[in-house]
């Protein structure tokens, strides 16, 4: 009987998720230029071999697919920086929003608003602000500073990619943390006050441990999102300058679809590798959720 009710969902899941996934794995084991799977030649694990063909993994120039490794290193650096920044800013924002501010609802809306924007809109807005003749440089020039070509200087472009994606999503995570903060009973803080606890200690010994389940959820969500970063960055920098903001998803897109050096098999192999990383992170998240459920009801 249960199977009967599950069937429609399983059907959709099978058709739209499992089947394309299987086809993708099949693609990753074929070579050639033909677009249709049946016209392609089976090459086993050649594509994966090609991706991992490196003299020294730390020096991407020794790699056969140097752009793939560039994307891997860029994405890794991005994940570390962006996730730390995102979780940190979300936490601070949630702590601030938790206070009895005037017009609290207004401020919450302000922080959440960018989350509602489409990523292309976000990328475009910031491109107009940061480009050589953009709003920021205009402002700097008026104030007497030297304008900087933000999107064409390697480190600034990377920082912009991190900053813009944090700006676009931090409101969402701040809201999750805010919910967690509000779930902490006020009386605990009063008891701590009666105990003569300093604010720092209140944060580290009471707030943070009780917020930990939410923090972990936010951490894993941001990790998963960060690995897949594409939309805003593609519009903002197009992967440039050079390849300094080329991330995995863009690499896969270019190799698989956009570039004239189209190689669907290689793109599929790269996407499978990326998928494996995401599976690990997702399992991690599932573990956390289960642990929270078990702990639940304090």
């Amino acid at each position: 009987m249960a199977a009967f009710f599950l069937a429609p969902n399983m059907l959709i899941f099978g058709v739209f998720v499992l089947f394309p996934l299987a086809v993708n794995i099949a693609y990753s084991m074929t070579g050639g230029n033909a677009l249709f799977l049946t016209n392609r030649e089976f090459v086993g694990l050649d594509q994966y071999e090609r991706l991992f063909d490196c003299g020294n993994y730390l020096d991407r120039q020794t790699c056969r697919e140097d752009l793939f490794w560039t994307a891997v290193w860029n994405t890794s650096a991005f994940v570390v920086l962006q996730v730390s920044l995102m979780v940190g800013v979300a936490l601070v924002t949630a702590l601030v929003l938790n206070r009895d501010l005037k017009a609290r609802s207004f401020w919450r809306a302000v922080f959440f608003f960018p989350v509602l924007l489409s990523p292309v809109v976000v990328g475009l807005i910031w491109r107009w602000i940061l480009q050589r003749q953009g709003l920021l440089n205009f402002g700097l020039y008026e104030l007497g500073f030297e304008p900087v070509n933000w999107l064409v200087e390697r480190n600034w472009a990377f920082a912009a990619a991190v900053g813009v994606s944090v700006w676009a999503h931090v409101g969402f995570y701040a809201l999750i943390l805010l919910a967690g903060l509000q779930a902490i009973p006020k009386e605990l803080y009063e008891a701590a006050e009666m105990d003569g606890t300093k604010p720092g200690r209140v944060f580290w010994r009471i707030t943070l441990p009780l917020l930990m389940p939410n923090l972990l959820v936010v951490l894993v969500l941001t990790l998963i999102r960060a690995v897949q970063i594409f939309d805003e960055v593609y519009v903002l920098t197009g992967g440039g300058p050079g390849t300094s903001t080329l991330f995995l998803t863009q690499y896969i897109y270019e190799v698989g679809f956009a570039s004239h050096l189209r190689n669907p098999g290689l793109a599929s192999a790269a996407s499978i590798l990326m998928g494996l990383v995401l599976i690990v992170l997702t399992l991690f998240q599932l573990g956390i959720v289960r642990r929270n459920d078990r702990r639940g009801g304090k």
Partner: protein
Amino acid sequence: MQIRKIVLALTAGLMSSTVAFAGDVRVMWYSDGVEGEVIQDLLNRFMEQNPDINVILDNVAYQVIQEQLPIELEAGRGPDIARVTNIKTLADHWLDLTPYLADPEYWRTNLGAQFDWMRPDGSEIIPGFMTQLTLTGGFANKTLFEQAGVEIPGAEATWDEWVEAAGKVQDSQQLNAAFAIDRSGHRISAPNVSYGANYIGPDRLPAPVDEGTKTFARKLVEWTESGRMNKDVWVSAAGTTYRAAADDFINAQIAYYYSGSWQVANLSTKIGDAFDWVATGSPCGTVACSGLPGGAALVGIKYTKNPEEVGKVMDYLASEDVVREFTERTLFLPAHKGVIAGEIDFQSDDPNVKAALNAFVKATGQVHENANALPAWKWGTPVYGALVTRISQAMAGELSIDDAFTRIDEDIKAQVAEASK
């Protein structure tokens, strides 16, 4: 990501509605400027004359033609007629119109010069015709040169001389850069040829990067470092992403812009009378002052269900009067020999336009044979892609130019290997 996958699946499914019913002819079209309106107008008149044929014009984005049409063609589907630029690479999908045309000889005489660009090597079919010929070439901001007191270099001027002259304008007028080239491997191929490059190797496979290409590539990197070449265009994107430098020229941020004849209508509309501009042909290298010809073709699709109707539509659109009217209204260079021989009255009030177009027509005589062979060569697009990806990395300082050359050869070799599977 999941939603996106579902939408793509649905879109692919919906796109299968491009399969036409009997009596319907579907045309997939893209526009750089006003061509969409012009062709619709022409087709409306055709339908008045041929009430039993319903021509449906799908005006789509260029990216659809580039990325989605090939997928449909691989699936054995697609529209009945399409306007495409990757003519050679997809040549296996074009319909042989010969049995469906009223007068194949007329076609061969007037339009045959570019058939090899559109059909597989050694084939004799008539796949379609070029809606326009394009030629790469430069544009100079005459007003800026005058203001700087710098003379516009003559027809024999080399790239170095042009960059120097534009550089003087940059310094005098406090411009951000002297000149810019579109971010495209296709665009720099003509200068490469002018410096002696020949992409086509033995067996019509790509040859390794030669001195001609290396010379010009080194110059590009040097000009980027010295600030003469606009850094934003090439450095600000990665991979094969196309970026046009037109806006910088239109906003009078640069003195010289190397692009092509298809920009004429765009520049005229956007610049208006803000400043005077001229088309200058292509600067010279050591070997030639060549531009790279190309163009978009209107082709019949092999998988059409209505080949007779397709033939009729193509006959109409390829007729001399229609081609002339199309050319005059869209401001494109025609491929039709009969039209070229006759009077072309380009419809524009902008005096710059007529002069520019005539300059381009004149420049067609300067095209070097190495450049002329490229549109008919099936490895053109992979080579352009490799060039732009790696040279822009060198400009960004990520690779040394020599490493870039090595990578270009590797990328192209990998692509050739893939295609042979």
